């Protein structure tokens, strides 16, 4: 018998050790979870979900200077034949990172002389394009104006200029729009961004210059633009009717310009007009974003080519009709009331049931909304056994004499929660 007990103890000890070792192994293995192909699987799902059948790498240039950046885009040809920018979805790589590096956004930086292959991959799809980082010297710059005519109206924006660099021993000019320095000799008449985009402000003539240093020698190109003060015929601000802005909230306005040289078109000139509010109830930013400050009415206008800061002030060439804006205190949900806020409802057991009603209470005291059977309302018996609720429509059934507490909970679309309760006394 003793021998058997000793054997049993030994078995127990050894088996427990085995089980303990097994559990320790499992727990330690659990930290090693992972996969050798999860990214590829997920990319395959993404590609088929987007219905992508091929991708193409595009960029402005195939040959660029050393020490500059070149922006690449990956365009997918989805099954619907619409092009989609999938630049941020693909994996970017350079065949030689010491010559050209490229980040996950497709921006390549040339580091030394050489030719590399820039490659975009997603799932089993890929596309590539060669990039030559060349030390060739810039000899001249010419500017093309894309769709910008020689004369444009006031307060336009969005016209694009392209700087073309002519390099030694190269037949094809490079697009160097993003690496030249752009300047305007009359910034009050028209401005130009670092990317060559033009905005006009008032009538006059302006010379735009694109310049770049070529081993200590400045190379420049220039072009003229005339801003005609008579081409802008009207400005309309939208929205223009029943505009209400609550205090602390904002409203984006748009300014649409009509030009005599562009019949039938309205141009969005929100960013280039001057915005004004008639008083302190409303503030309007330079980009047409209005914010409610205090209760009252304000008129919003957009104008062009004026300067009220000078002495004497310069009247605008064109001013929009005023848009009346009412700045109001926001109406917020404050409470909910069962049976208009009664504390109890006395009923007789023989009546079998009673219908409760619930209304929302707003900060301005107006428009109490009946939410008795609203999908955002929840009725509950929170105390007592004298009643029960069938359904979620505030109908209370009596089970015995006594007192129950019935509650309603309501959450609106902004997440504001209100609740109320009422005692139902069953006699």
């Amino acid at each position, binding site marked *: 018998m003793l021998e058997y007990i000793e054997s049993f103890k030994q078995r127990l000890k050894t*088996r427990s050790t085995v*089980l303990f*070792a097994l559990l320790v192994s*499992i727990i330690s*293995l659990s930290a090693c*979870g992972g996969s050798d192909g*999860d990214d590829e699987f*997920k990319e*395959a799902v993404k590609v*088929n979900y987007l219905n992508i059948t091929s991708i193409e790498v595009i960029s402005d240039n195939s040959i660029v200077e050393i020490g500059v950046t070149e922006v690449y885009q990956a365009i997918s040809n989805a099954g619907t034949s619409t092009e989609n920018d999938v630049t941020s979805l693909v994996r970017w790589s350079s065949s030689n990172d010491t010559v050209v590096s490229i980040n996950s956004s497709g921006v390549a930086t040339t580091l030394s002389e050489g030719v590399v292959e820039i490659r975009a991959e997603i799932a089993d799809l890929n596309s590539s394009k060669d990039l030559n980082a060349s030390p060739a010297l810039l000899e001249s710059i010419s500017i093309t104006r894309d769709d910008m005519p020689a004369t444009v109206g006031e307060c336009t924006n969005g016209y694009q200029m392209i700087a073309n660099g002519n390099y030694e021993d190269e037949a094809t000019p490079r697009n160097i729009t993003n690496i030249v320095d752009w300047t305007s000799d009359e910034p009050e008449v028209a401005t130009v961004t670092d990317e060559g985009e033009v905005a006009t402000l008032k009538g006059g003539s302006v010379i735009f210059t694109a310049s770049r240093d070529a081993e200590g020698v400045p190379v420049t190109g220039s072009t003229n633009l005339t801003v005609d003060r008579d081409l802008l015929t009207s400005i309309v601000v939208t929205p223009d009717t029943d505009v209400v802005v609550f205090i602390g909230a904002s409203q984006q306005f748009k300014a649409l310009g009509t030009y005599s040289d562009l019949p039938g078109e309205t141009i969005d000139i929100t960013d280039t007009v001057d915005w004004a509010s008639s008083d302190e109830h409303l503030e309007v930013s330079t980009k047409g974003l209005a914010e409610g400050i205090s209760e009252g009415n304000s008129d919003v206008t957009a104008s062009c080519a004026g300067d009220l800061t000078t002495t004497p002030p310069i009247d605008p060439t064109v001013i929009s009709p005023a848009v009346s804006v009412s700045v109001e205190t926001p109406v917020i949900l404050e409470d909910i009331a069962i049976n208009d806020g009664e504390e109890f409802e006395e009923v007789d057991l023989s009546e079998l049931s009673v219908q409760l009603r619930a209304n929302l209470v707003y900060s301005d005291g107006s428009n109490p909304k009946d939410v008795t059977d609203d999908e955002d309302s929840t009725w509950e018996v929170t105390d007592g056994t004298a009643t029960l609720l069938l359904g979620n429509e505030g109908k209370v059934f009596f089970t015995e004499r006594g007192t129950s507490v019935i509650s309603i909970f309501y959450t609106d679309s902004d997440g504001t929660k209100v609740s109320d309760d009422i005692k139902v006394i069953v006699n």
Partner: protein
Amino acid sequence: MIKKGLLAVLLMSQCMSSYALDLYAGIDANYIFTEIEEGDASAEFTPAALGGRFGAYLEKGVGIELYGMTGSDDEDLDIDLSINYMLGLAARFETPESEGGKIYFLLGYGITELDMDRSGSGEPGDATFHDFSYGGGVEFRLGGSDKLFINLQAIRYYAQDDIQIDGASLGLRFRF
């Protein structure tokens, strides 16, 4: 990981060789629910698989088992996903039997090899997924037998980085 797996197998064989243990084996018909998400894109595959298990009780209601399966394929979003194999080792914990039935839990570690074929391209091909696995099931005596059981089981085999592999099975288990 392979070394640790071998260690576990050695422990099991040591255990079985030293004592006259209760051994068991079983077969299972499985549905493997695989969900792969990438941002707003997701695909779900439900291939079927035929599996088996072999195990031993260390104590009453406590055992260890090896399981494995191989399966068919399923398609979603014009992607074909098939199970090449699944292998794992798990500890088994059973509740006392009541009216011929019992609940059991499995806690283990497994490796699954899947093959994905996107739109007939053959890519991206095979990939293995290894993770902690856990789940459980209910089991009943079959026809009053004290050796043959039928069971329903649900296991999570893999859940990492927006990929989940779960299984549900109907199986038979024979206790030697």
